[in-house]
């Protein structure tokens, strides 16, 4: 029975950090977008593209991208560790997600 060792634990730590920062970023963007929309009748910012809708959309995109980024992180890790089996497995998951995203 293999013990994962500190490399695996480091990977856990990196992924946990990715999720922590990503969750904060996504949440703040969504909250900012909702706030902008709420105050729009009274006060509006005159910067093109900086609308409540766009900020909220960006926040949602951050959440959707987080798991994809997590798979990329794992792929990078397995490549660095020269673990071809798991690198291929990670690549398969990534490709499946991409196909699902862009299929019409």
């Amino acid at each position: 029975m293999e013990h994962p060792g500190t490399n695996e634990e480091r990977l856990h730590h990196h992924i946990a950090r990715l999720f922590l920062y990503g969750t904060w970023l996504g949440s703040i963007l969504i909250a900012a977008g909702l706030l902008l929309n709420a105050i729009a009748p009274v006060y509006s910012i005159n910067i093109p593209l900086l609308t409540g809708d766009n900020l909220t959309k960006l926040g949602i995109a951050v959440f959707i991208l987080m798991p994809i980024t997590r798979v990329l992180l794992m792929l990078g890790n397995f490549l660095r560790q020269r673990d071809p089996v798991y690198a291929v497995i990670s690549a398969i998951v990534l490709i499946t997600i991409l196909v699902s995203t862009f299929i019409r």
Partner: protein
Amino acid sequence: MEAFLLFSAAFGASLLGGMLGMAGGIFIVPILTLLFDINIHTAIGISLVSVIACSCSGAITFLKNHLTNIRLAIVLETASTLGALTGVFLIGIVSTAFLYGLFAFILLLSAKQMLVPRQEIKAEENSAANSWATSLKLHASYPDQASGKTIPYHVGHVPFGLVLMYGAGLISALLGIGSGVLKIPAMDAALRLPIKVSSATSNFMIGVTATASASAYFMRGDIDIMAAGPVALGSVIGALAGARLLIWFPSEKLRIIFVIILVALACQMFFTATGIDLFNRS
């Protein structure tokens, strides 16, 4: 105003789920369709975003406690994402009545699982040297907080687990849920994981499985941004608050409340599927 109501509904659902250590995601679609009168396809897109948000924020604690078997997760995700891809294909084909009916079934299944306590079935210690789990080096260990020891465990039938994960991915894409209701029993029974590892690994996988279909919805412009935003925010905050309140509330009473709500929602979803209109809503 509607944004605030959506936020509150998602917050409440995730709070309740969080107090029981599970996602409130299963409530989101029924709440959106039944209370907010949102079209089921739109509701599914919104729910998927909420599920991803909860999975990612919940995973942080599991990962820090080294409970998640990430290798097993990525192996199983080959099947669950394929299932999600199949679901994305089927979205335009299956009828809404079918979706409502399937949802009612899943709600009842969740209710049943809430009532039956989880049983830990250990995989055989001397599992075959040429088993998938052994070849892929999936057997691992986890730190047990209570005893302070690291407890090793073996992983059971991976091929069967893959088949179940394919199904879970398919249901996740079709209904906009995390499919924890399917993944957790699969991990407990087929893969024979310790309960904490199974919860952690299932939660970890839910995000990737949901993203496979959520990204399709997003690219097609099928996610109602102004509804998904408050729902996602409410879900994250509710789940975090629920996890903190976990220790203060007796889980037995909460379980009963959960089961009652699940059965009530299942009935209403079933009525919607079959066109029965008990309250004469037009």
